[in-house]
């Protein structure tokens, strides 16, 4: 039966979080559809990589182990996916909405003439009725994503073309071990058969990839600032609160664009999606682009001078006041009450 495929990114021997998150989602959907979950890893020195992916419920691991496949370049990875998909006919294929997945996905979808939906926030199986042609499609992949700057949420389907392809950003799906003892089958890809010499025309001359130092996704508490914080200096106050509470500092796009803090801290549709235990929104008005990335927070405190800011609708505590007054008091009363 036509499987669910996940293209897994690998950097320095470690499978990317976004790929493991997609394997988790892929496992759920494959079980629901009664098909296999298959993973693809392309790179070099891939011995033992199966230990990283099998616990996520992978039934078949396709390995392409070749020095020319690392670091990633578009053309050989595209050729391998296109040829493998032609051979294996998957019904669904996922990749991360990362700088690799967003480079690779469109190229593969174009070569296969299959639809691709970028940056999905939800993926579910459902039926689709094509009223014009009076046809009902069973068990399609609903690819749900915000569009139009986050002002609408669209559900996209690919009725007639396979695979149904989607990319998802890091942190949007949950990463969850399926079974630590789960074992799958390993299949090796004949790289020479699936690529041609012309695929290797792009050369990576220089490369500096850093591990992300700021881990917003793992932070249980996030103190986030918006344009209303006013300046880079005022952001220091947020850092103080975060450090006292044991959290991280996040920001809205407006604050990042204004240069108040670095881009890695951006939360929202075009940044990271977070689900902390506590989200403290300071001077954030609550544009949908931002709230899309934090609305699943367990508890929200909104500090704003505007009593009618849209963010307040998400909040458990609404504090109307100047954050330069409120934050020092929060630090003060936390210290007083916590000992």
């Amino acid at each position, binding site marked *: 039966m036509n499987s669910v495929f996940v293209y897994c990114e690998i950097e320095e021997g470690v499978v990317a979080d976004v790929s493991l998150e997609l394997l988790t989602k892929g496992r759920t959907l494959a079980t629901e559809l009664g098909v296999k979950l298959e993973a693809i890893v392309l790179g070099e020195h891939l011995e033992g990589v199966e230990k990283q992916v099998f616990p996520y419920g992978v039934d078949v691991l396709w390995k392409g182990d070749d020095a020319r496949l690392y670091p990633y370049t578009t053309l050989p990875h595209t050729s391998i996916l296109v040829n493998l998909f032609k051979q294996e006919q998957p019904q669904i294929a996922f990749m991360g909405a990362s700088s690799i997945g967003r480079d690779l996905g469109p190229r593969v979808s174009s070569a296969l*003439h299959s*639809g691709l939906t970028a940056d999905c926030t939800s993926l579910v199986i459902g039926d689709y009725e094509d009223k014009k042609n009076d046809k009902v499609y069973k068990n399609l992949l609903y690819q749900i994503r915000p569009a139009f700057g986050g002002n609408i949420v669209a559900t996209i389907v690919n009725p007639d073309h396979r695979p149904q392809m989607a990319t998802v950003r890091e942190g949007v799906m949950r990463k969850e071990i399926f079974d630590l003892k789960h074992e799958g089958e390993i299949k090796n890809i004949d790289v020479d058969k699936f690529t041609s010499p012309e695929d290797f025309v792009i050369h990576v001359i220089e490369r500096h990839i850093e591990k992300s130092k700021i881990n917003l996704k793992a932070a249980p*508490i996030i103190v986030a600032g918006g344009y209303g914080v006013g300046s880079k200096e005022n952001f220091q106050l947020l850092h103080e609160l975060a450090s006292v509470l044991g959290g991280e500092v996040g920001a809205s796009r407006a604050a990042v664009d204004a240069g108040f803090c670095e881009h890695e801290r951006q939360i929202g549709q*075009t940044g990271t999606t977070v689900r902390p235990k506590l989200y403290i929104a300071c001077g954030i008005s609550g544009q949908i682009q931002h709230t899309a990335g934090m609305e699943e927070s367990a508890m929200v405190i909104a500090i704003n001078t505007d009593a009618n800011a849209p963010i307040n609708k998400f909040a458990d505590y609404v504090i109307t006041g100047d954050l330069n007054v409120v934050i020092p008091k929060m630090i003060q009363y936390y210290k007083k009450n916590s000992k």
Partner: protein
Amino acid sequence: MKGLKIVVLAKQVPDTRNVGKDAMKADGTVNRAALPAIFNPEDLNALEQALRLKDKFEGSTVHILTMGPGRAAEIIREAMYRGADGGYLLSDRAFAGSDTLATSYALACALRNLQTDLLICGRQAIDGDTAQVGPQVAEKLGLPQVTYAEEILECTEDKIVIKRRLERGIEVVESPMPCVVTVNGSAAPCRPRNARYVMKYKYARATQELQDANEDYMNLLNERPYLKITEWSVNDITCDPQELGLNGSPTKVKNIESVVFQAKEAKVLDASDEAIDAMMKELITNHTIG
């Protein structure tokens, strides 16, 4: 080195970054008319990279290719004010309802009409944020692609060296020419309009914009052919009509919901010491913090 023929793919988009109260209609659909139409921001970064190459290599030309309704010619004019030589407007009802794949098919067919040494476009458009059209055009034309470009470091007749800005770092790659380059918003901003070019090109028009033009205007355009913005309909490109528009789009929109804020009961506090003291106590008691 001979001059380069550069084409910049650009899109006119609704300004989704400044969505006001009247942007949504009562039925929850987007009121496009209420949003200003702008030059897609990253396409301006792309234009700047093209213009820098033009400055560097004498005899180079920069043309815009855009698909859209008649008013999309505005961005071609805007590019000309900043230093582009001209542009092509691909406009036809047959393209309506295109997803990214059908869009890139139409653009690729139009590009076959042109001799191009280098194709540059923005990484993504702000109305869809998909980043798909650049790579898909490259695939359809069988060209290599370099995405997330921040700066073109070196360019010769047969190769180009590009710095890419990735999520967690940078990469410098070398690609053969011709190729497709998609440019990041982190690249240099586009130069402003040049008054001389504004004077020169302010009467430039695409065919659709000339429907009500008087005789004087038509005479002016005949005297100055550079004021004619080339317009192509589906009949001016070699293509399979089945691959265009809604028909040629594998993805279908099942439904669209406008985003509605969910009301939730909140405790409303002022900034007083008592209120904040009480809140911090609650948060510690229920193990949210501490």
